[in-house]
């Protein structure tokens, strides 16, 4: 059972590291519409994020910067979700009853 989680995590890391640098650079659906209908300039960023636009700062090679951002984000998301889950979910039910 445990080993199956490993395959999903591995798949996520491989997608983040190897596929994300190959991602299409076309604007996404909403950006495309915002550009065509001329409201794109209304958008801005309130927050300055540490890794904006999925490019690890200071890395010149774009593919590498994307892959690094992808791996960090995948691990970070896993960690944040498990952290929140730990706060929200009760300990094993079988132990309680």
């Amino acid at each position, binding site marked *: 059972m445990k080993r199956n989680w490993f395959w999903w995590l591995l798949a*996520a890391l491989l997608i983040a590291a190897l*596929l994300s640098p*190959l991602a299409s650079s*076309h604007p*996404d659906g909403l950006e495309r519409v915002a550009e065509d209908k001329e409201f794109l300039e209304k958008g801005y*960023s309130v927050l300055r994020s540490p890794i904006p636009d999925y490019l690890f700062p200071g890395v010149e090679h774009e593919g590498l910067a994307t892959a690094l951002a992808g791996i960090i*984000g995948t691990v970070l998301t896993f960690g944040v979700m498990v952290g929140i889950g730990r706060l929200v979910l009760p300990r094993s039910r079988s132990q309680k009853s």
Partner: protein
Amino acid sequence: MHIPDGFLDTKTWVATAVISAGAVSYAAKKSKELLDERQLPALGVMSAFIFAGQMVNFPVAGAASGHLLGAALATILLGPWSACLVISTVLAVQALFFQDGGITVLGAGIFNMAVVAVAVSHFTYHFLLKLKANRYAATFVAAWLSIMAAAVLVSLELAVSGTIPLGVVLPVMAGWHALIGVGEGIITAAAVAFAVSTGTFGQEKKAEVAGHEA
């Protein structure tokens, strides 16, 4: 479909944030009742997988791109309450650390993608299973509809904010996302097949049994 800051006016992002806060708290409460810490790896792995999947934009009609949303995937494999928490977490990480989606409109994003897209996926999938639909066909339709629902909501929010009239934005948002939704459907069906073949998500098998018995 990550909205940047500035696209929505204050009343719209505050209202959607309030609704989302209520919905996510309720999802957390239901998860607390239904799950325990043994489900932590499932939540973590699903969030990580959806984060990674969202980075891979596929080209659409030579002028735009789309990427996995994952609402239907998380809903079908983990159930709607966990899916709400998973998608909300992914959106929060993206807004905070990657500047993808504005922080003021995070509540709107959660409402569109973690609340409504998840609810649409859940009801569509189980409705189709009740009609004895093939599980992968049901997955595809649920995923496609979840994208369309989110696209319609974004259009409504933009219109209510006075950013652009509904009549202008809705047809183009629906048009592009009808295509992006096809990608969502294919990726979601493939990922569900991967889950079935690796036997990872126990709940997923139970859902199948329940679906067939119903």
